[in-house]
């Protein structure tokens, strides 16, 4: 059971949050100009990394804010937490 440091509320139990999958997948600005394959790439394709992963979490039973998390999926350690719109920390690339 993770302890997640919500950037707005502080450290809370995992049960207050819901996971939103991979982060930094930007919705195409002009979907109509994309081919089926390009659209499918946005729609369906997600990484499943063993190691450092950037992901979205929502403090759904708290402030309802979405934010980003850097997590090492091999040991579940959360390495960094940052707000939506902020640049991902470079040292984990």
């Amino acid at each position, binding site marked *: 059971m993770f302890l997640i440091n919500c950037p707005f509320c502080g450290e809370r139990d995992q049960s207050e949050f*819901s996971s939103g999958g991979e982060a930094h997948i930007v919705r195409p600005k002009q979907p109509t100009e994309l081919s089926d394959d390009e*659209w499918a790439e946005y*729609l369906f394709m997600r990484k499943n990394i063993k190691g450092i992963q950037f992901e979205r979490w929502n403090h759904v039973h708290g402030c309802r804010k979405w934010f980003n998390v850097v997590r090492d999926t091999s040991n579940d350690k959360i390495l960094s937490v940052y707000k*939506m719109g902020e640049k991902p920390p470079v040292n984990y690339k």
Partner: protein
Amino acid sequence: MPNYRIHKTEYIDETKRVSFKYDGKTYFGYEGDTLASALLANGIHLVGRSFKYHRPRGIVSCGAEEPNAICQIGSKKDLTEPNVRATELELYEGLEASSQNCWPNVKFDIGGINNLISPLIPAGFYYKTFMWPKSFWKKVYEPLIRLSAGLGKSPTEPDPDIYDHKYVHYDVLVIGGGVSGIIAAKMAAKNNFKTLLVDDKKILGGSTIYQNNESIKIDDKLSSEWLKNEIQEIKKLSNLTIKTRTSIAAYHGYNFLLAKENLTDHLPEEKKKNKIRQRLWKIRAKKVVIATGSIERPLVFNNNDRPGILLSNSINKYLDYYGVTCGENIILFTNNDSAYETSISLHKKGIKNIIIDLRKSASSELIKQAESLGIKIYLNHVVTNTFGYRKINSLEIMKLSEDGNTTIGDKIKLSCDCLGMSGGWTPMVHMHTQSGGKLDFRDEDQVFLPKENSEDQISVGSCNGDFDLENIIDKTVNKINKFLDIDNQDYQDTNIICSKENDKRNIWLLPNKIPLGKTKCFVDFQNDSTAKDIKLALKEGFRSIEHVKRYTTTGMATDQGKLSNMHALGIIADTAGVKMGTLGTTTFRPPFTPLTFGTLVGRNVGKFFEVVRKTSMHEWHVKNNAEFENVGQWKRPWYYPKNRENMHDAVQRESKAARDSAGILDASTLGKIDIQGSDASEFLNRVYTNAWSKLAIGKCRYGLMLNEDGMVYDDGVTTRISENHYLMTTTTGGAANVLSKLEDYLQTEWPELDVYLTSVTDHYSTASICGPNSKKILNKLFPNLDLSDENFPHMSFKEDKLENINCRIMRISFTGEQSYEINIESKYGHSLWKMCIEAGKEFNLTPYGTETMHLLRAEKGFIIVGQDTDGTMTPSDLQMDWIVSKKKFDFIGKRSLYRSDTVREDRKQLVGLLTDDPKEILEEGAQIVLDVKSKPIDMLGHVTSSYFSPNLNKSIALAVVRSGKTMKGQKLIIPMENKNINVTVSDTIFLDKENKRLNA
């Protein structure tokens, strides 16, 4: 019968005699006994039959690792409990226990025949045997297997006991109250760490607490005396909490641990009443010290499972802690020094014993002590067989060859009434590995030890592979100082004297002259798997320990292989000729020992099982005999039976009344989201398929929301209350998810939009009145409101007051009738409802539930998201192309609507179905085919909604059918179990296609 209770100990209160029943017979023990020690004191070893071969089995251990002595407690239908370990169950007055897995009784068990036919039941027997014929599986094999499967009997009535959960936070959690745990807890607590010490036993002290060997001393005292002092001291520490009878069940990530505390299991029946039985502790600890100790290993030799064969150290504990001897003529069979401690203890109490030692030589202090006492020791010998059916009475030993692979010389037969075995010690690394820690293998004594940690934790004491007392104390002190970053000097000058083990020899499967196939060398006592089974698995090609485990079921019983896993690994390694350390282990999964369901569930039973949401009108519905339907967490009136009507009759009456005069529905549960901000219109444009910019203030519009994959996600009516203010309604079940999804887009994709979302579902109650007389009823409630079609047309909104309370009234319709939804602040919801009912009396205003609502909308062909859709339906599949804007640049899911898959013409599409026999009502979910003769039958689709319409006086249904759009008039067949139903594809709208009734 001889008395096996041979001396007094401080842990047994001989002034308090306790009577208990075992297999129907009454016995006596003392307060402080476990069921196992009390049985042994009465000379009872035989306590059960093995799972597969039904061999007689006796008590093996004195703790959580016990594989055999598991019993059924009590006989009441609600309180009986199976698989309780007699070695852990504290004795109490009136305890009733019985042996398991035997019939008619433990001494004569019919299933014992399995032992005779055991050559016919090898590993994988079930997989190999019950393969064919296929038709036998359901009617012959499965019932037979089920009959013989399982240990013990589950209670058949609800558990009346009370259970509890508790959340706690500590700086340091210490697991295990043996010598290393006590030192760790003391050091932590004295250095200002808020500390919790848990131990599964009744008292602290582990195995040191009954230690009485003169060659093991601390500060010139017996180690047990020294430890008692330490325990007295730590009890005084103010920031140390000590919880005994508490075992850690699971170690999860982020140092989150679950512990089970036993509160009343040791109390007599009358004292248990109205008390919490067990409490689940949910512990968050900044740091965790694991001091869980180690358990003794059995040895694997022929017939090593007879009653009277125990672990050597358990014999010691029964003797020195409980004052019970396990026999009068005991043989100890060992490969290490610890059995010598047992031997010396037995000798001191005047109990005859000899030692069989695998090792060629042994030379420690303990061994010298045993020798000087004149205890007979057979070095370099091995037990090759044992005898005695219900209890061991003799055994055979032979000399070992130089390499230990064979036996040599003559058999020596020795008589005995008890055999103690010690195959070394296995560190309890369960907690370490559950936390994500890795293991190392130490070849010298063949143990897995904690290596890397992924959590902030440390292992100390014998669970870390430190076995002698000096090593344990020195290392624990050093490690804890480092771990907690402190400089504690308490143990600086502690003087420890102990025997040091010098000689080691480990043989996983002991050699024998008899071919392996004819031996019974048990590895897993509870699941009856033998060395032969493991070798067979390897022969048949299994290599991974995880596969061998599952094929032979080794380590898969309720004891989770605490005594067997290491031997299984060892035998695999030896057979396959690989190093044991390279094999890895099977996964250590929680819980460490079985948990009751009650502990896991805690107080969340009965009406606390799930959150229930009720509308403000709920009380009225109850008073008016509503039957309720669960929709998400909501209780919604399903129908209101009158005069013992059944559901069908009630729904027919309600549906007819709604169309003929007036009906009223509690629509409070619909999700309501308040949307405000200067970009609210643009936001709606992006989330709905249709256009919103031009919706006039005071008007309502139906919207369809898609997922990004183009599939219908939710629908509902949204009202423009003012320029920058909308009220969106969602489906009852989808409300929370819709809000979450909208927030997601708003916060992550479109943060530039000035829009604010607030859930107001619970803030407003809604009464929906429909039918040709609805306008008249509204007029009575709101006499000043101009209800003319010109002023207040369909799909528009007005505000008015009901006795000074603001109401929002939407003229929208989910039934096809003229219809008004009155929204009022929730606290007035009940009053509003009653006023509506009162006003509607003269018009036969009929309350209707969800079933009638579904019927009425189906007559109009309105979809229900989640009933007529299933996450694979596009708007076009639903024949709702009209609601998808062609002009809008983008909206959620737009691009997906012309992916190659979504434009296929043979997708499943929504159609209406009419049965040829208008009285025939289809079953929802029924499959639809064109032709029943072709094989395999081509499934075209299924029925999604089906009703008998009282207004049309015929059966109607909605269905999804492949290429359904082009099928109007097509005859199709719905094959049912006993008949085929003929249907014709129709339009989805069955009633009032011209929408005349909306303005009637």
